């Protein structure tokens, strides 16, 4: 009996905390449904008096969001793949050994990401221009974001590899597997969840990337949704309801995916399948 009440109390506290924490998100949804003058009303209304559901279809059409979102998906997918390919091996090696050089490599991986994209963009732009990469703007953006996202991926995936016992790999080697074979058939499957989940997180980060895309993709047809949103926002805007509607369309699918997948994400990151 007592235990049930404790549980209910915990649930209540959890709901309250979530409500408090998610208020900014709620505010985005509410603002998108308000009319223009309602937005500036004092005191602000906590619910829209007359929800404008049509705003989503209107903004979708007006801003041509289908193409923007597709570009975001392309860029995010490319980034995720490239990061996973390059980062997984790196994380594995960094997890397998402990010596001075590994420390140096780990240090480098972290160190290289100190500056915000807004400061990295000029040198990257100059370099890409000289290599001719700017003629392939989406590829250029994928490369730049991958560099930015890599350390995060490596740190997370390295933790997954750490939880794979060395004994299993050694046993596989004794059984006649090559290093590559053991990595491919034993270690990788065991760390699979962690890799998958970290890749999804990279996808989500790349989905929202803005600074590189804005500078390197001049053609509207190739720009992702973040750049489209920025162009929509401009300094001279009053269309906050439409902007919030755009933001809503932009983030809701990814939020939904995240909430649905979150159990797997947490368990994937622990990936202590052998614990």
């Amino acid at each position: 009996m007592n235990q049930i009440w404790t549980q209910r109390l915990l649930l209540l506290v959890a709901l309250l905390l979530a409500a408090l924490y998610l208020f900014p998100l709620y505010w985005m949804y509410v603002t998108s449904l308000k009319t223009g003058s309602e937005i500036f009303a004092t005191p602000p209304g906590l619910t829209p008096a007359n929800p404008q559901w049509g705003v989503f279809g209107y903004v979708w059409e007006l801003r041509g969001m289908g193409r923007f979102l597709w570009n975001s998906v392309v860029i995010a997918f490319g980034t995720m793949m490239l990061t996973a390919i390059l980062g997984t091996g790196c994380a594995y090696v960094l997890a397998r050994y402990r010596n001075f050089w590994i420390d140096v490599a780990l240090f480098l991986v972290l160190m290289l990401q100190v500056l915000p994209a807004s400061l990295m963009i000029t040198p990257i732009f100059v370099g890409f221009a000289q290599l001719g990469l700017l003629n392939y703007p989406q590829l250029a953006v994928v490369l730049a974001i991958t560099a930015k996202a890599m350390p995060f991926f490596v740190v997370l995936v390295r933790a997954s590899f750490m939880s794979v016992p060395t004994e299993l790999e050694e046993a596989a080697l004794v059984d006649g597997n090559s290093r590559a074979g053991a990595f491919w058939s034993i270690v990788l499957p065991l760390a699979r969840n962690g890799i998958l989940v970290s890749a999804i997180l990279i996808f989500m980060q790349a989905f929202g990337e803005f600074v590189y895309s804005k500078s390197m993709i001049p053609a509207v047809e190739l720009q992702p949704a973040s750049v489209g949103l920025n162009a929509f926002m401009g300094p001279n805007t009053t269309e906050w309801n439409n902007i919030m509607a755009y933001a809503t369309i932009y983030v809701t699918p990814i939020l939904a995916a995240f909430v649905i997948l979150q159990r797997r994400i947490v368990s994937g990151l622990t990936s202590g399948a052998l614990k």
Partner: protein
Amino acid sequence: MTIRFGLVGAIALATTSLLTLGPAMAQDEVTITIWSLDDANQPALNLAREFDEQEPGIKVEYREIQFDDVVSEAMRAFATGQAPDIIAVDNPEHALFAARGAFLDITDKIANSDVIDPANYFPGPLNSVTWDGKLYGVPKATNTIALYYNKDLYAKAGITEPPKTWDELVEVSRKLNDPANNVYGLAFSAKANEEGTFQFLPWAQMGGGGYDNINAPGAVKALEIWKTILDEKLASPDTLTRGQWDSTGTFNSGNAAQVISGPWELNRMLEEAKFDWGVALLPTETEGGTRSSAMGDFNWAIFASTQHPDEAFKALEYFASQDDRLFPEFGQLPARSDVALPETGVALKDAALKVFLEQLQYAQARGPHPEWPKISKAIQDAIQQALTGQASPQAALDQAAATIDGILGQ
């Protein structure tokens, strides 16, 4: 497997979309690129499309850039050989490019042109495209600032006419200020960007100062007046971080009784303001004192790196030939004295236009100086330090003057 497919897919996709972007080019067709901040409701995009259609041999690629990004994007592109052929740049930043030879000297082209005649342009805008006696562009449009006031709130407060002097402005704002109903007496922008400089310089100039004499006694007095307005909360404290467009938004919604802003607000105000309003000249330091105002808006320029200077100039000629459409269609003021502005038939708009045209006669260009951003920053810093109480107006402007002298002395 999926991994390989994904990467190949992404690359293939990037390549194909690139190919579709540049469709098979017809022989001899010349492509010129235009960068401007105008969107579909503003002139540049529309004029660029028209030009594209009427010139079979020229293909126009238009890119919309945000106000804040114009200079940095342009510089980066120019430094790496990716510059567009034509760009629209804010007038105080024109000299930054012109002085370094990044823009094409079009003095001779203009001299031979049947369409563009420098004599037709207002001196302020023309001055901003001029560097070292040569022309490096064509003014795109012009604007200035004046005082909008809410006639309904004036009537309620028993005020019959707009303020003529700075002291009257403070006095009137005090009467109009009504915190209980969320109404501020005045709205303007003291934001730490070019907008703050744009709004403050006219005051400094009315007070006998200027960017090269920013601590003149009249300029100090102007900043003291600004400080009084903020200290007494006659204007929202967010004046410090809010741009002109947002500040005017509070006027339109009835939360500020007056606002200092420009003609670019007219169309929106007609739509949003649910009250009677008027426009007055900026108040001067003393009754009948020196008038001054800011001169805003963009200029067209051709990058020196262009491969097609003749086609690019042809585009500028087309844009200039359409200047008479700027006001009726887009609500912007042409920078020319020879373009008559027809009555629009909207009484409020026509009355406002008259005031802005008069105010425009007093408009002074910022600079031109290739280090304008640094000069402007010194002025913004002084404004912000004084208004936040970190320094007295005198001390803040003295420091700005010292900084600016250092820049001008170079």
